């Protein structure tokens, strides 16, 4: 995938089209990073990243491995130092400060609990270092442990805890600190699926309850979608797109973002624009569909080479006189109970294609059969074939 151009290099038209992150004027920025660059040896990890997190926001950095999201988090924590750029926390320039002077708390992927200290001592560690009065430490620990249900584990050592318990201790250690900002570095990746879903909800609940500001790094799009107020998609050391998660989901600005978010992935087919009877159509690879002229506006030019994108969820079995967008040759049907996914090809040699079907419709679909698919023109995404950028944005 080609490199996405820098976001701020875009035209004013582009900027105007951008839906701003809900950012009421009275809300101050808790964390801001400007023009961050960072290399390890010859490898450029971050190539000029800006980040803004208003107070009370749950910001999530998401991206494939190697995109620089963890590095950015560690830069905010002070565990690494940027080659270029500045970082401010609560209005204070902390670019050159060590972590201890930044008033941040971090939950590590491996939890990084102090193996030689009990849960209670782990929680108290940071407070003691800051010379917090004993009574205060006690009350904060009591509060945090109640919040996380750690009361019965207080005198255990980390190695005597389960993975979920350790994870909660790690959060407790951050909570008692009442920091300017909470930093999470893929905190759920060492938990099993059921626990992960549970803790995910709990993290969001804690965030709301504490009125905290959070910066959360993950490669998991479900976490990203469910947790974020403000989502930052990183790719190749740059911010590819930022905004509320739903907006990004609905209006991905590049092909990369479009495929990275959403599961199963968005279907992509190479095609061309044409105009028939005053309406614009996109056609290619066995797909033929009308496009939303209002959305794409001037970008629609007859004969333009585009990539046509449509999410599996936006497809359905074509019934009645609904226009058929494509005909899917079904290979496998994944029935999930409430819904089903049909995997197959549009043409015998074409790219794989996935469509979501209603459970009732899926029942009659057999592998090997061909089914007609329909989609609303508003669900059709178009990307420039050369730049991979979304049309109309």
């Amino acid at each position, binding site marked *: 995938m080609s490199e996405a151009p820098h976001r701020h290099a875009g035209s004013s038209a582009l900027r105007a089209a951008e839906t701003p992150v809900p950012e009421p004027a009275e809300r101050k920025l808790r964390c801001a990073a400007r023009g961050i660059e960072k290399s390890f040896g010859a490898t450029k990890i971050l190539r000029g990243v800006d980040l803004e997190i208003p107070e009370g926001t749950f910001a999530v950095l998401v991206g494939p491995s190697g995109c620089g999201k963890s590095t950015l988090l560690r830069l905010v*924590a*002070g*565990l690494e130092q940027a080659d270029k750029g500045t970082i401010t926390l609560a209005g204070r320039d902390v670019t050159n400060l*060590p*972590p*201890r002077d930044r008033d*941040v*708390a*971090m939950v*590590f*992927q*491996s939890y*990084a*609990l*102090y*193996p*030689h200290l009990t849960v209670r001592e782990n929680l108290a*560690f*940071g407070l003691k*270092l*800051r010379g917090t009065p004993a009574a205060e430490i006690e009350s904060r620990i009591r509060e945090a442990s109640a919040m996380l249900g750690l009361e019965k584990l207080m005198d255990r*050592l980390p*190695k*005597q805890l389960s993975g979920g318990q350790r994870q909660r201790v790690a959060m407790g*250690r951050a909570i008692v*600190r009442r920091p300017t900002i909470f*930093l999470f570095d893929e905190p759920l990746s060492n938990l099993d699926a059921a626990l992960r879903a549970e803790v995910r909800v709990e993290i969001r609940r804690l965030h709301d309850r504490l009125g905290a500001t959070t910066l959360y790094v993950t490669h998991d799009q479900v976490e990203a979608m469910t947790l974020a107020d403000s989502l930052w998609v990183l790719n190749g050391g740059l911010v590819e797109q930022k905004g509320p998660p739903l907006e990004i989901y609905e209006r991905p600005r590049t092909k990369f973002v479009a495929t990275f978010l959403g599961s199963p992935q968005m279907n992509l087919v190479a095609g061309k624009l044409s105009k028939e009877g005053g309406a614009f159509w996109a056609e290619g690879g066995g797909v033929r569909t009308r496009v939303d002229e209002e959305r794409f506006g001037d970008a629609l030019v007859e004969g333009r080479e585009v990539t046509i994108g449509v999410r599996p969820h936006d497809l359905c079995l074509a019934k009645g006189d609904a226009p058929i967008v494509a005909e899917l040759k079904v290979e496998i049907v994944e029935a999930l109970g409430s819904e089903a996914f049909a995997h197959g090809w549009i043409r015998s040699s074409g790219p794989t294609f996935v469509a979501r079907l209603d459970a009732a419709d899926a029942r009659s679909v057999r592998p090997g059969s061909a089914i007609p698919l329909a989609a609303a023109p508003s669900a059709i995404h178009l990307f420039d074939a050369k730049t991979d950028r979304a049309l109309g944005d």
Partner: protein
Amino acid sequence: MERSRAGRALHALLAVLAIVATILFAPACSEPPRGVVLWHPYRGGEEAALKKVVARFEAERGVKVTTLAVPYEAYLSKLEAAIPRGNGPDVFIGPHNRLGEYLLHKLVAPVGDALPDEDVPAYEPVTVDAVTHEGVRWAVPLASKCVALYWDTRLLSEPPRTLEELAAKKGALGAGVWPLAYESHSAYYHAALLHAYGGALFDGGFAMIGPAAERSLEKARELVTSGAAPDEASGDLLKTLFSTGKVAAVISGPWLAADLSDDLPYAVAPLPEIEGVGRMRPFLTVDGAFLSPDGAKREDARALARALGSSESARERAETGKQVVATRAYWARADGERPAADDRHAALLRAFRDASADAIPMPVSTAMNPVWVPAEQAIRKVLRGDATPKDALAEAKARYDDVMRPPPPSPSPAPLVIMIGLGLLAAAVAIVRRVRAPGFRRELEASKPAYKYVAHAAITIFVLVVLPLLAGAVTSFFAGTRDDPRFVGLANYVDILTARGKPLLSHGSFYLTLLVTVAWTVVNVTLHVAIGLALGVALARPMLRLRAVYRVLLILPWAVPSYVTALAWKGMFHRQFGAINALLATLGVEPISWFSKFSTAFTANVATNVWLGFPFMMVVVMGALTSIPKDVLEAAEVDGATRWQAFRLVTLPLLKPTLLPAVVLGSVWTFNMFNVVFLVSGGEPDGTTDILVSEAYRWAFARNSQFGYAAAYAVIIFGLLAIMSRVLGRVGGGEAKEAAS
């Protein structure tokens, strides 16, 4: 790919193993041809001369002679081990004063027809006297060794007649040049002075007492305090000073000549007189060819011993080996031949021969051995000005008498038997209980596979490690020497633990030594760990330049043999010539007499041992550091820890489990670190820096071979360490165990 690499590695390993096995076993299994076996402690010219003599003997007699040069350090123990087992030499060369020990361990037989009556006139009378003990001749005298005066012909026009005349040259010789140098701390050298005053070191007991001995000590002190002679002069230092023209005359033996350059202008003369007292008379030792009991039965061996002393042999040994041979014929011929004027070598030998005329043969008795240490302690004390000669000598005699105290009468073995019986009973009960315990058979059955893995290790350790130690432990119930043991039950232990009847913290008592040992261990291990930690942490820093270079250089003390570096350290702590004092002088510090005070001598020992030991701890720390998860340290950083706090509160506790066993082992090693104490301070001053092990060694080797007593020390040390390690293990291991449960 992977498989072939592994295969190649395996082949290479097998090849190496095959080569090693060939070398190990092939020559090892071939028996030496049964000729005559000759052992000697010679090297260099002396060895070359001996080889020529032996070659001639082999040619003339048609007998194969196998020679073996055994280092002096291992000579006696090797003789002692080999001869009773029939593996020893037929003939061996050694100094006559070891005869007492040879006799005690039954290592010698009378020479018989190797030195028949008709041969006696062919040898210098004094040398024949030396090898004669209680009317029996025990060796063929080969060469004599005694000290004489080397004088620098540039600095002196003629050899000084008296010591006073020489001492008076001070100042006239130029700045920084001493008139005289000798190993003033050594009783062997001091004996020459002592003899001049009519005193003696040994007369069947400690004889260095009374007015003659006191006056000799006063004289020695006068030489040092007046600046006529340097203090603490070691053999190596004498050589350097004399070679570089820093001293006009030195007292030393023929061995010094071998180390001096040929173009150094010097001559040798007999020792000077002490004005109004008499001539200084050194000790004489005579190298003799001894016959082992087996060798004495063999005609070839006796013939070899005789041939070694013959005049042809003497000529070879004098000319190639530069020995002061005991054979008169050589000197008679040399006299007749009138050596060329520039034949320094001949002149040198002649001078030593002249000096030997006045010399006093070293006593033969084994009771002489324990004289040296107390005598030297007295000499050093007086030279330092710590005691009057009278007091120092009285103390030395008391110490000698204490060491030589006859072993206690054989007690009834009852207490020991009861103790051992009770011990065995307890063990038996424990074993029976264990065996009776339910499921024991099943457990034992389940253990079988494991035994296959441990059996060979268990057997090897038991046979080659535990058995010798057990043998040692058993000796602790005996007194006397190994060949003449007397069962004394627990008397050795009682003696040690009651401080030999003296006050508990008196000089050299077990408890005082224990205190020193504990201090020694604590100080050393603390410094090892502290330095190891500091360097380990420094080397673990990210982006450290020259890391690999530092690492290798810092491991260096580990790589060089410690018996060499310990001696280098001792040289560095010399008061007048040591590098440390020279270093301090540049900082304006007065020179320190390192070995004259407990505190400084202890410091010197510690400096050496810390040097030897820190690399191990450093490596352990470096290893342990890499096993600390990086993110835990980052968490501490985010939690607000400074570097120091992170180190103290996180790194250190996490290092503890790895460090603790290393500390236990390190403590055990340091507790028993005999080398450093023995080689650096040698217990100075006055035996105060001795630790328990060096005390044990002294009982075994310097105090009339009281192996039982030494073994009792060893067993007590063992007990102390076993207790210590348990305590340490419990203190440090408590949390870890708790955590693991």
